[in-house]
């Protein structure tokens, strides 16, 4: 362990559990129960710097925040894509999208714990990771297809408000489903994964951050290829532009809509595992706040615009990390919403909306 590493323990009044400790995590959970404050759980943050004493004007601190911001931004971008693609194709804000992210985090913790328990994680780390990500993404893809068929498809001819309310209902339903099946307490990711990192002076890039950045990059490139270079992607963009005409050239809009939901949920599931690994645990209601932040990112980028969602995600992640680092960590959730409200107020089409139409779905 790096010599200057230490832990700060703070009480999280947001009722969020974010375990981030290599060992002793369970003990702290028990401690939380002991104090009978199970919804007011200890939040453990692994910091290399003491927030009180760090010199925030030095370059290392800035670069460290930059790296943290890109990591978080990439995760938001992955979630934001689902919002923007679904909106592009059926003009629905899928408020249940955050739940796919949460479900992905749970499938991830289940399989990663399973593989770790069997000891495969040490011998075949790549296979285990690929399998965990693949299974989580596939599970959420099918979950999303099911949700669309049950909650949105019957309402396709009704007003958009009806589908929106149905989405909110679905969100509550799925979140409670997770709670009932997985419990109200957070589930810890296997703690021995991806310890350590690379050090450049005072700047540290953890191996986990490298993994997240690489994987996010691969997924974003793959998505771009799918949407802009393949026939399916073309059909998806065509369906977003004119459903009747798409049908007249033999494109089934039902299939394309299912595909869109599947892809969006798959990306969200990957983001769910990343967050689980990054913060060390998952919780049934973890989809709510990141969901709204990613939605803000999609709006910021121009809803319906794929490149916009990626850019918006990065910006939201950066703003959150820099805001927390330089202004106040207590208000980190607020920054995303300030952006959301400002964009809706001053430029509802977002930074890449309408005018730059190349990259719309």
């Amino acid at each position, binding site marked *: 362990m790096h010599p200057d590493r230490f832990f700060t323990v703070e009480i999280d009044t947001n009722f969020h559990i974010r375990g981030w400790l290599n060992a002793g995590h369970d003990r702290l959970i028990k401690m939380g129960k002991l104090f009978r404050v199970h919804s007011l759980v200890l939040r453990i943050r692994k910091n290399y710097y003491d927030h009180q004493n760090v010199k925030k004007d030095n370059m290392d601190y800035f670069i460290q925040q930059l790296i943290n911001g890109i990591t978080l931004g990439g995760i938001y971008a992955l979630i934001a894509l689902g919002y923007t693609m679904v909106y592009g194709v059926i003009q629905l804000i899928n408020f249940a999208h955050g739940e796919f992210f949460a479900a992905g985090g749970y499938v991830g913790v289940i399989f990663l714990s399973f593989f770790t328990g069997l000891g495969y994680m040490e011998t075949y780390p790549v296979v285990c990771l690929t399998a965990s990500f693949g299974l989580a993404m596939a599970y959420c893809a099918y979950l999303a297809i099911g949700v669309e068929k049950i909650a949105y498809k019957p309402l396709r001819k009704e007003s958009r408000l009806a589908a929106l309310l149905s989405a909110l209902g679905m969100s509550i339903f799925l979140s409670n489903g997770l709670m009932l099946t997985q419990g109200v307490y957070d589930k810890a990711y296997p703690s021995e994964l991806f310890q350590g990192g690379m050090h450049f002076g005072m700047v540290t890039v953890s191996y986990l951050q490298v993994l997240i950045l690489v994987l996010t990059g691969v997924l974003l490139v793959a998505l771009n290829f799918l949407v802009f270079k393949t026939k399916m992607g073309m*059909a998806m963009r*065509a369906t977003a532009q*004119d459903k*009747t005409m798409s*049908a*007249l*050239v*033999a*494109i089934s809009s039902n299939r394309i809509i299912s595909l869109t939901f599947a892809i969006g949920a798959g990306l969200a599931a990957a983001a769910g595992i990343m967050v689980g690994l990054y913060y060390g645990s998952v919780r049934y209601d973890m989809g709510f706040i990141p969901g709204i932040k990613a939605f803000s990112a999609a709006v910021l980028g121009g809803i319906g615009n794929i490149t916009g969602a990626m850019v918006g995600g990065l910006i939201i992640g950066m703003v959150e990390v820099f805001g927390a680092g330089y202004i106040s960590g207590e208000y980190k959730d607020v920054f995303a919403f300030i952006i959301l409200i400002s964009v809706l107020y001053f430029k509802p089409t977002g930074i890449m909306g309408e005018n730059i139409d190349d990259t719309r779905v």
Partner: protein
Amino acid sequence: MSDQPILELKNIHSGYGSIKALRDVSLKVYPGEVVAIIGANGAGKSTTLMTICGIVSPEKGEVYYQGEPITKINPENLPPMGLCQVPEGRRIFPRLTVEENLILGAFYRDDQEGILKDIKHVYELFPVLGERSKQHGGTLSGGEQQMLAIGRALMTKPKVLLLDEPSLGLAPIIIHQIFDIIADINKNDGTTILLVEQNANLALKAATRGYVLETGEITLEDKADALLHNPEIRKAYLGE
């Protein structure tokens, strides 16, 4: 001309809610024909084509294609059967390139070589599309969009091509160019064509037979020449 119509509408009643767009429409199209439906704005011409393509479901009646009823078939399954429409207003995908628009015409096809060959063929028919293959559909002029819409339809390898107002909003010289191509498609590829037009003169000159549609009802059916010389038609639709 064979005895069996390739496309037949039997007693179609159709409407949008309480508005009756079509009342007891029956018509037949035989293989290799060019059939024109003429009529004023709002007579139900587009609804007829949308009913054939399954976008609008008829309240009563049945559409037969090659002797089989197709009223219950989903619209996206009709192009693979050889039935394709160039809808009113052309409906190019505006944010896809010309080439992507053409590729999507062949969406259901898997023969990569055939698709490339057909794209080349479309570029031969409409050289301007070849020059603009990387441009977005939305940036084309009206005439170019109409060419692209026809080209895209050809990519589905249609046996029956439904054309809705191909002359709408175009300059006369472009209209002639497009109608020449339509005649070529009929002659060279043997594609049956059902043409809907407000421009009766143009449509009847291109067609072998014609139907007159007035407020949702077929009021007249005859050889195109006969209709062209029918005094009532000349008065109502040809401005005499």
